[in-house]
């Protein structure tokens, strides 16, 4: 590494104290396999970039946002109309949140279909899945914060669903709502979850997830593993892969700005707890497939309530999905159809179809 005299001095000073050389050695030797599916390697990076955008735009919103039934909507209106670039920051925060969840899903399914979760990356997969749940938690809690009509009733429905869980549902719903109903108390605690509790937990898991990825490197797809070393192609993580990542981040930033400027996020009408629920209440798009499933289920399945059966089914499916690396079914002999691919495609198609149906019905 070329450094001038002054930089060298500072580096030496730090190195003596923190032993940086082994870390830099490790990073400089880190390689990324080059192959036709390597585009999926960038999805995690894009998600990380969008998370950084979320943190920065979220901090800016915090400067003006005031939680509370009487102040939340008004402060949002103030941000959108009076604060310089407030409209842009809010719109970026909303679009970036949605894009982040989208890329989390893309990243998860690409990891699944390339079988990157296999040994030795089982814990990386589990930590990633937990990050997905936390991201959904961010989405759910953030949706209510503008205190608008749609978010208010969607939160009511969402927390009602939580209340249907046997044994722990009712107390959990009371904790989430801060009482029997969705009120200003719900708003302030959702605010607490959104800006303090979830970021703390999310950052911890994110650091772990990134450490795992850095320590173990990128996984090689099956066909590459079987090739002799001489035929494998590699590129350095620093700076080659990192700069490619940066290039994609710039493109995503541009798309994000385009969406924020040309399709600014709507604030809607202020929530009125005494008004009847408006038509077209729906959750954020990433909850739509679950919401639609619950709507389709009959009132009773055997001796259980339909809604309860749905919730239990999703909970079980989530647990099964989280532990995929530990129960994976490997193909026998020369079988061409891989069971894991069928299961993954079924889950993906189910999510897509039920999301589309949710918006059409």
């Amino acid at each position, binding site marked *: 590494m070329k450094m001038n005299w002054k930089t060298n001095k500072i580096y030496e000073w730090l190195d003596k104290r923190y032993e940086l050389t082994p870390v830099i050695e490790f990073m400089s030797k880190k390689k990324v396999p080059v192959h036709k599916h390597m585009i999926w390697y960038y999805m995690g990076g894009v998600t990380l970039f969008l998370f950084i955008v979320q943190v920065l735009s979220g901090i800016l919103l915090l400067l003006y946002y005031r939680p509370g039934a009487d102040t939340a909507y008004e402060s949002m*209106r103030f941000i*959108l*109309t009076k604060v310089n670039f407030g409209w*842009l920051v809010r719109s970026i925060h909303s679009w970036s949140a949605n894009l982040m969840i989208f890329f989390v899903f893309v990243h998860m399914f690409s990891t699944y279909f390339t079988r990157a979760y296999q040994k030795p990356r089982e814990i990386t997969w589990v930590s990633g899945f937990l990050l997905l749940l936390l991201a959904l938690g961010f989405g759910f809690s953030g949706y209510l914060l503008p205190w608008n009509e749609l978010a208010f009733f969607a939160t009511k429905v969402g927390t009602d669903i939580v209340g249907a869980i046997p044994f722990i549902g009712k107390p959990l719903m009371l904790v989430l709502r801060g009482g029997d109903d969705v009120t200003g108390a719900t708003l302030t605690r959702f605010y607490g979850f959104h800006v303090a509790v979830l970021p703390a937990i999310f950052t911890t898991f994110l650091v772990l997830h990134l450490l795992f990825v850095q320590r173990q490197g990128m996984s090689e797809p099956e066909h590459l593993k079987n090739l002799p070393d001489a035929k494998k192609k590699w*590129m*350095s993580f620093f*700076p*080659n892969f990192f*700069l*490619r990542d*940066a*290039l994609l981040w*710039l*493109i995503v*930033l*541009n798309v994000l*700005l*385009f969406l924020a*400027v*040309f399709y*600014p996020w*709507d604030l809607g009408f202020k929530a009125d707890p005494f008004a009847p629920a408006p038509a077209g209440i729906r959750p954020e798009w990433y909850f739509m497939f679950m919401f639609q499933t619950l709507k389709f289920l009959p*009132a009773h399945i055997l001796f259980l*309530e339909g809604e309860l059966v749905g919730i239990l089914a999703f909970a079980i499916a989530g647990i099964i999905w989280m532990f995929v690396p530990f129960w994976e079914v490997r193909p026998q002999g020369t079988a061409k159809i891989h069971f894991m691919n069928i299961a993954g495609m079924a889950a993906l198609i189910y999510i897509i179809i039920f999301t589309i149906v949710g918006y059409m019905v």
Partner: protein
Amino acid sequence: MKNFLSLSTFLILFYAMANTFFIAEILYADNTVPSLSEDHCLTCHREMGILPSGFNENDIHMQPGLSCSGCHGGNPASDDPEVAMSPKNGFAGVPTRAEIPQFCGKCHSSINFMRTYRPRIQTDQVEQYYTSVHGKKLRLKDQKVAECVSCHTSHAIFSVKDARSTVYPLNVPNTCKKCHSDPDYMKEYHIPTDQFARYATSVHGMDLLENKDTGAPACNDCHGNHGATPPGVESVSHVCGNCHVNNLNYFTASPMAEPFEQLDVHACEQCHGNHGVQKTSDEMVGVGESSVCIACHDAGDNGYHAAEQIHHQIKTFVNLYDSAQVRLKDVQQKGMDDVDILFLLQEANQDLIHSRTLVHTFDPSKVAAKAGEGIKKTNEAIVLERQEVKDYHTRRRGFGIATLFITVLAVALFFKIRDMEKLRKKG
């Protein structure tokens, strides 16, 4: 779970109903009026199928237990028709048309009796009735004029607040129409029969009959009900002024009030009409074809000139206000901030309404002063609207500059990566 809840709800309701029934039984036991099930007038007439036509058991009188004998007299406790319908027992039979007001008035004109059931009810209906055209003609033995049951029915009387009532606000025009729109029935009275037809297409009629707005005036709101009579010259403006208060005040204080009175002209009706009163338009003022001013004023006189000025002021304001509304739509369509604009235009709209009301002063300076206030607010709104549209384009230009910067950076990065790849391949 749901079944269990439904069952519990049913049991609770059943328990409550049983209790209510039990309490009601005790109350009736203490009352001297027999319960409806023990009322022999009702039971016999029902069994024999000779209940009066249009009889309704939900009639307002039946609710507190006043049955047939309440109006017709007799002894409902006896199952012997001779005893039950004996004049000795106060049986009055069916009243003649001329007797009906007094027949109903037995109770309805007695506050001592009526306060038992409705402490706040009026008891001057019969008194008022005899001051009406209907009442006066009835005294002159006219057998066709309306009396109580003509409007209220005989045996299906409901509260005026009940939508089933013939005198419920939405039903009043149709109740009056039954006689007043029948040319054959009204022939001998020599009055028009097109009131309902004209009313139905008027601003009032459309609001009441089409929009079901019970606040809109029906026949009785202008003519009265029990004391129904056509408003005279001296009272017609007061009738309209009941609702259109400012218009009346401005008019009576205007220099036009006196000549109108001298000419024996109905104040409001002269320009707006009566039953067929239409939604007003700015073209009613001025010197155009639709103007009502030129009916009396000729070119060159002061009134003509004032009408011209007032029309010009209002139109200037309206045109400006409409253009601000079009710009507002543009601002909203562009997704820009419209809060302050909306407030300003709301205030301007109030000024516009007030300016139009001030037309009844017939004073161009007063209209100009109020319209001027509104024009000022509208102009302020237009300045804000222009600013918002400008901001909208500034945002897009800003995005263009940012995109240019990001694209240059991305292209530079792309070439840097390509150079590095080349070096890697060579190496």
